[in-house]
Each structure stands twice: as C-alpha cells, then as structure tokens.
C-alpha cells in the first residue's frame, strides 16, 4: 500500500497529434468529457465535478454517451480512466460513473442490466466473453471493456479484492514464479486493480508481485495470529503477575506496618527498660547513700559522741543515753524506710 502510484496520467495512445498544439477549454459535462478531442486529466475532471463545475449527468446524457459510435475506441478507455480515479469523486458522481459503465456493458450485451449481482463464476464468464468473444476466429483482447467491467464489479462489490485479482490473473495468465522471486513490499490488490493501466505487460509482473504478497500476507497473518496468541498468553501472565505483585505489595505493606508497630513497641519496651533500669539504679543509689549517710553520718556521730562521753572523766551519762536513744530512733527510722516500698 505504500507504493501509491501518481495520479493516473491520461492514456497516451489515443491522443490526436494536433491536440497538443492548442489548449481546449475543460469539459463542462460528462458527455463533453467523452466527446472532447483530447482526453482531460480524469482526476482533475472528477475534482471539478465534485466542486460543481461540471453538471451531474442525467440518464439521457448517459444513454447518449453509450449510444456514441466510438464506444470501444473513445468511451471505454476514458471511462476506465475515470473509474480508476473514482475515489476522489463524491457518492453521486461515483454512482453516475458506475451506472454509465453498467449501461455501457449492458448496451454492448455483456451484462444484463436488471439482473442480480453476478457471482464470481458469472464474472469469469463475462470476462471470458470480453477477452475472447465467441466465434471461430478469436478476437482481439478488449482490455478497456474488461477494465470497465472489472472496476464496475469491484466498486459494485460483486467481487472482493482477491476475486478481482484472480479475475485479472485469469485475464492475463503468467507463469508461476519461484519463491525466491518474491519481492517484499509488493502492491496490494486494490492498488493493482485501481491504478494499473490494463495492459498485459504491466499487469503480469504485478500479478507475480501480488502472488508473493499474498504468500507473505498469509505468513504474516499466521505470524500475527501466533503473536496475538502469545500476546494473549503474556497478557494473561501479566495479569497473573500483577495480581501476585499486588498481593505481595499488600503483604509488604502489612509487614512494614507490622514492623513499624513492632519498632514502636520495641522503642516503648526499650524506654520502659531504660526507665526501669534508671529507677532501679536510682533506687539502689538512694538506698546505698541513705544507709551510708546514716551509718557514716548521724550514727557514727552519735555513737562516737556517746563513746567519748562514756570515756570522759567523769562520764557524761546523759549524753551517752541521748546519743544511744537517738541512734536507736535513727535505726528504727531507717528500718521503717527500708520496709516501705
């Protein structure tokens, strides 16, 4: 599809030699287009058609064109050019052109106008008639009428793109190519049908390319299917892994919260431990200092004073008594403190 051909040039073979010398005014209607001595650019004509510069042809106009004596020489090739550029035309113009092609072919007796859509086999039969009309002596190929029919069938959806290519292949049989001759990036069937001049010299290599394209397309489709299958599997796997990841994330969060809680608890317990240790150490210091202070301080002072008073000459008994009494009271007081919590 990348190799879109340039705008279809007008067919060179039917131009009269003097038409190049003077510039004729552009055709203002479809009959004028067909009656003109020089063929106009079909794409430009269709664009001006769409802009309203060209009037929509009536059925009588179409019939008049069909009844023209130069059907095969002038009408058919120009109609093929128009049909090959029909994608730039509006729906109405498209229908007019397709009606014209249908009218032309029915006028020539190749198709029946009021019949249903022909099947592929009927199309082949029509193509056979167009390519080799009945008679003992085979007639010359009528590629323009075949082109009209092919494009009509394609645009009327009587043929699918592969059917259209098959019909082309039928019309322009070529020798089968080797696989090694398959060229990458060949044109698609639509391009081939719509944009290639209907000459065997041009159609034949394109059909070879198309064949290789078809094989490659099939391989690609197979690869695509496999890839899609793999993608599906992988997507499923991703989903599973995402679910697992979400579970694990949730688990991690839960564990982190748990860790934080435990850290807090550890801090609390550590603080409690510190508090208990501090309290215990302080209690221990307090007890030691209190007892030591009492023993080294008051009790020693009292007893020493009592001892000195007892050793004095004469002994100072009231002091001895008082100090011993104070000592006893002091000891009692300390014992009371020790027995408290």
């Amino acid at each position: 599809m990348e190799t879109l051909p340039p705008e279809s040039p007008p067919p060179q073979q039917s131009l009269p030699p003097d038409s190049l010398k003077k510039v004729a005014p552009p055709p203002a209607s479809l009959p004028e287009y067909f009656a003109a001595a020089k063929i106009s650019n079909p794409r430009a004509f269709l664009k001006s058609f769409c802009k309203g510069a060209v009037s929509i042809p009536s059925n009588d106009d179409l019939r008049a064109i069909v009844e023209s004596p130069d059907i095969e020489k002038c009408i058919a090739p120009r109609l093929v050019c128009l049909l090959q550029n029909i994608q730039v035309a509006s729906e109405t113009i498209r229908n007019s052109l397709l009606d014209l092609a249908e009218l032309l072919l029915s006028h020539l007796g190749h198709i029946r106008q009021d019949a249903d859509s022909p099947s592929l086999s009927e199309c082949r039969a029509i193509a056979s008639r167009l390519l080799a009309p009945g008679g003992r002596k085979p007639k010359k190929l009528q590629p323009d009428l075949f082109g009209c029919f092919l494009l009509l069938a394609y645009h009327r959806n009587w043929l699918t793109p592969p059917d259209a290519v098959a019909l082309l292949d039928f019309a322009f049989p070529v020798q089968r190519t080797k696989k090694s001759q398959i060229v990458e990036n060949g044109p698609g069937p639509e391009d081939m049908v719509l944009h290639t001049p209907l000459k065997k010299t041009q159609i034949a290599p394109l059909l070879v390319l198309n064949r290789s394209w078809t094989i490659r397309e099939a391989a690609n489709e197979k690869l695509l299917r496999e890839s899609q299958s793999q993608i599906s599997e992988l997507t499923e796997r991703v989903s599973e892994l995402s679910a697992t990841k979400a579970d694990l994330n949730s688990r991690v969060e839960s564990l982190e919260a748990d860790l934080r809680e435990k850290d807090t608890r550890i801090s609390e317990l550590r603080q409690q431990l510190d508090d208990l240790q501090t309290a215990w150490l302080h209690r221990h210091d307090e007890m030691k200092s209190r007892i030591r202070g009492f023993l080294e301080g008051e009790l020693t002072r009292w007893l020493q004073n009592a001892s000195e008073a007892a050793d004095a000459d004469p002994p100072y008994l009231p002091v001895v008594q008082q100090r011993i009494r104070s000592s006893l009271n002091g000891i009692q007081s300390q014992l009371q403190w020790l027995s408290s919590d």
Partner: protein
Amino acid sequence: MAIFGLDFGTTNSVATIIGRPSPGQPEKTLVLTSKEDFRPHPSVVWYDGAQPIVGRKAKSQLRELGLGVFGDIVRSPKIFLGSPIPINVSGVNRWAVDVVAEILRFLRNDALSRNYPGQSFDHAVFTIPVSMLGRARRELREAALKADLHVHQFVHEPLAALYGHLRGQQDFKARLAQLQDRLALVFDWGGGTLDLTLCKFSGGTLVQVLNLGDVEVGGDRFDLRLVEFVKKRHAEQHPNADWSLLSENAEPRLIQACEGAKIDLSENEEIDIFVKDILAVSGPERDLRVKLTRQELDQVTRDLVHRGLKCISRLLDAAGIPPAAIEFCLATGGMAAVPAIRQGLLEIFGIARLHDPANAATVISEGAAWIAHDGLRLRMAKSLDLLHAGDDHVAFIHAGTELPAEGKQIRNALTMYSVDPRDGIAKFQFSRSKWPGRDFAGDERLTYTTLTLDVDEYARPLHERLEVEVKIDHDLIASVSAQSTLRADYQEVEIHDLEFGLGLDGQSIDEVDEEDSSEEKESLHSRERTDFAQAKAVSLPSGSVRVRSNVSLSQHAWDLVPGEIVRKYQSDHRLTSKQREEAGYYMPCCLCGRNIHFIERDGCERCAERGLSLSTTEAASRKAARRAAAPAALDVAQSI
C-alpha cells in the same frame, strides 16, 4: 535530648531527672542526691593545692560558718558571679566563673557516674535566685559551658519551687486552675539566706509580684549564735577556761555538734552537747558539757526568727495586701523545720495554708526538672515600656512574651522621631509597671534605664528618623540600641533586671536565630502603633528623677512639639492648650518686655494697671508671706 533540672543553690546543689518507676505508674522525680550521704551536694570548692575538691569533702574542711572565701575554700561561689574582680583564694586570684564551673562539673560527673541509660546530662534548666541579674546569669551560662553543660533555660528558684510542689500533686492541673489570679508566698529559709517571693498565677503565667531577701538571717547565723551560746555557757561553767587554747579541729567539731543539736531540738525538748577535748588543757574545762533546751535555742535565736518572720509582713505591706490574701505559703529550705519558725508561720497562715513539703530541701531542683520535662517557658512578667513624648508609655516588649531558650533571641524595632531636637539630644526612658498587670494611669512605675542619643539640633521637629531596637537574649538580658539617621549617633545599653515569669500553659511563639524578617518587623511596628493609641499616663514614685521624653512614634505628632516652636514649622497648626501655655510662657510681654515667669514673680506696674498681674508691691508682700510660711523651702527654691 533529655533535659534535667539543676538547683545550683547558695549552700547546696542538686540535680533531678524525671523517671517512671515502672510501666503504668505516673512519672516522678529522681533526685540525684549525694551517693555518700543522701543529701544535696554542698556548693563548696576546696583548692587542695591546684586540685579542686568539691562537695561534702570540701565542706568538711570548713572551720568557719558563713558564705564566701575561707582560706583555700570557697563556699557559695555563686554569690561572686557578675563581679568584675576575681576571688582571692589563698593568694591565688580565681574568677568566679572557673570556681562555679568546678561545682557544675562535679555535679555533672556525679550524675554521669550513675550510668542512667539515655541520660547525657548535657542540657539543664538552671534555677537562679530572683536577685541574680543578667551579668551573673551570663557568667553562670559561661561556667556551665566550661563544665560541658548547656543552660536550656533559667528559672527563678521560687517559681521552680512552686511548680515542683504543685506538679508533684496528682491533681495538679485542677489545682493550677483553682489558683488562677491567686497569690502564693514562697518562704525559702536556707542555710545562707532568707528569700521571700510573692507570686501570682495570672493568665497562664506564674509571675513574681514582689521579692524580699535577707542575707543576715541564714541558717548559719543560727549555728553561729548557738556556738556562741554554748561557748558562753561553758565559760560560765568554767570561768577560768581560756578559749584561745582550742585543741585541733575543735571549732569544726563544735560547729558540727551545734548543728546536730539544732536538728535534734526540732524533735526533743532538750539536748546535751558534749565535745571531748575542746580545749587543750588538763582541767575539767577540757571537755564541753552543755545542756541546751529548745526554749534556750528559741531565746538565743529569737531576734533572727522575729526578723525573718517580720520579712513576711514587710513584704505584704509593701505589696499592700493582707496575709489573708495569700492562698498558701510554701515553706522551703532547711530552716523551715526549726520549731520557732514553723510556729511563727503557722500563726500567720494557719495549718491549712502552710505547705511545708517533705521534699523542702530538693523541691526547687524537682521543680526545675518538671519544667524541663513539661517544656514550660519563661515569659515577660511586665511589659518593657518606652516613655513617649505625650508622657504616656508604649509597650516595646509585651507582658507575656515568651522569652528565648538557649541560642535564641527575640527582638523588636521601632522608628521614632524627636519632637524637640533643639538641644541635640533625644531621650529614651525604658520602664515597667511596679505591679504585674497594673499599668493604668497613676500606677507606679520603675525605670529600667535611660538612653540619650545625639540628634541633629538644626533639623525640624519630627524630621530625623531614630531607629530604636530591643533584643532579648537567652540570658534574659535586653540590649537596647538607638541610632539617629542624620546625626549618625549610635548608643547601646543593656538591661539586666528584666522581670519574667513562668508560662504554665505551654504555649509558644516564634523565635528567631539571627534576624527578624521584614514582615515580622512590620507587624511589630503596627502592633506598637496600636499600643501607642492605648498608652496611658502614669506616675512615678516620689523622689524619682523624671525625664521628659522628646521622642514620638508618629512623624505627624505636631501636638507633642513644644508650643513655642510649632508655629515656626506648622503655621496652620491648631495649638493644644498646653502648647498655647508653652508659647505664652516664652513670649515677652508687649508692655514690659519680660516673660510671664518674671512678671508673676516680681509683679509689673504697667500690667497691674490693666489688671493683668500683681503690682511690684503686691508681689513683694506675697513673696514675704510665703517666705514666712516656709522659709526653708523658699531658701532652697531661691538657691535653685
């Protein structure tokens, strides 16, 4: 960072932390008393050669009672903080900072030696006496840093004692709520001094209302009296005893015996004192044997007790409140247990209002620890006001402003203008109200400082901008600076006696490390302008030197410019009555050419003819009458 409380006292010092004895139990104070005798550490440093020895061992070397330097011993080095001269200790000059640092280092090492987990003992709330001023606070912080201690915050001892006493109670929050707008008296009678502080619970802040101290009635004085009494009694028993023949260590043993007797007499009616071999003689007078009764102790120390208790009435009289207005009296210090003193306090306050806690010796330190634990902050007790030209006051730093902790400072700046620059000097007087919350017209005020600044004497009034700034640092010292923009003079002065209280509701304000933002400055300016509008006229105590301020906050305050010059610059200004009076005073009389002062003093015949003044004869007779009524006063006036 655990912050502990430290009571660096005059006679004893002790640190306290807050701990939880066991999970679920309420927190309580853990007082780090001496591990040797379960008492606070004596604030004594003994220089044994170059080796400093601190605490009980140093105190045991004391041969005398009292505070200060005794040979190579320094007792209560805190009292020397802020002094510009060094202490001479046994011939060696030592700075008080270094001596204090020895005690603080000793206290910190003692605390660290306990190996309490999580306690680094490097930041403390320090308690200080109310009388300790800024320079001493600054040196105390310096000493602490030398001992690797950071002063997180200072707090006054009575405030710490009150908070420690209340915080130890289970329902202390409810109790604090009950005490709103009530007064409490902290009666701290220790070994060195008696300090009374009247405190008020006011608007979430505990502030000191009035403080009174007496260094002449400390516990040492009682011991000294007792020693003298015992010696006298011994001399009576042995008229031939020669006290010059004291045996070795006799004096400290006698002091120790008397201290013990004083304590024992709080529980006994009488006690016998015996000191063996007090005199180095062989007779019966060698040993001291004296019977001492409580009555005798009371008699010997009656005047001291009376003087101490009298301080209460002096304080209350000065505050103008009756004893009944005191919600409770918190008795702390070792002397509160002396029966005569306790009895005196009971007579004044009754048993319900006298709180003498069992932890009286350590309640200050415990309060400091609670303050550190609860994160309480100091606040301005009274506004730092600036006298305005309209004779009203502008609050420069508001009462209740939270004061900075370590490493912080607060600042405020104002732009002012001189209303009368003719003498080339702008006068800034900073003051505070005498009583917290009493800054109405007529309320007494106390002056912090006065700052004068050179200004451009040729500039028109209200033209030259004067930038005034006050900064308060973590030592609670206010630095006041002023700068004149035209004259480019710069003056700075420090205020060391700011009055501050303790915020009880834990609210805080933003502090700055270095510089205020301009928005903050602007908001402060606008706040001050509001206050200017609400400023009130006040009175000073009689005898005070009165400064007439010539600075104004507003550049358009032409009402405050002296009347005799305002017309020169503002011809269409409508003079106030005061300005008219001023203008008239200096304007010479169109008849006699003299001004009103001389006309009123000496009289004027020409003015008298028109009935505008006294004649010279009438003025002379009036002067004579006045002289007869108050000759002395008149003489003084004339001499002036």
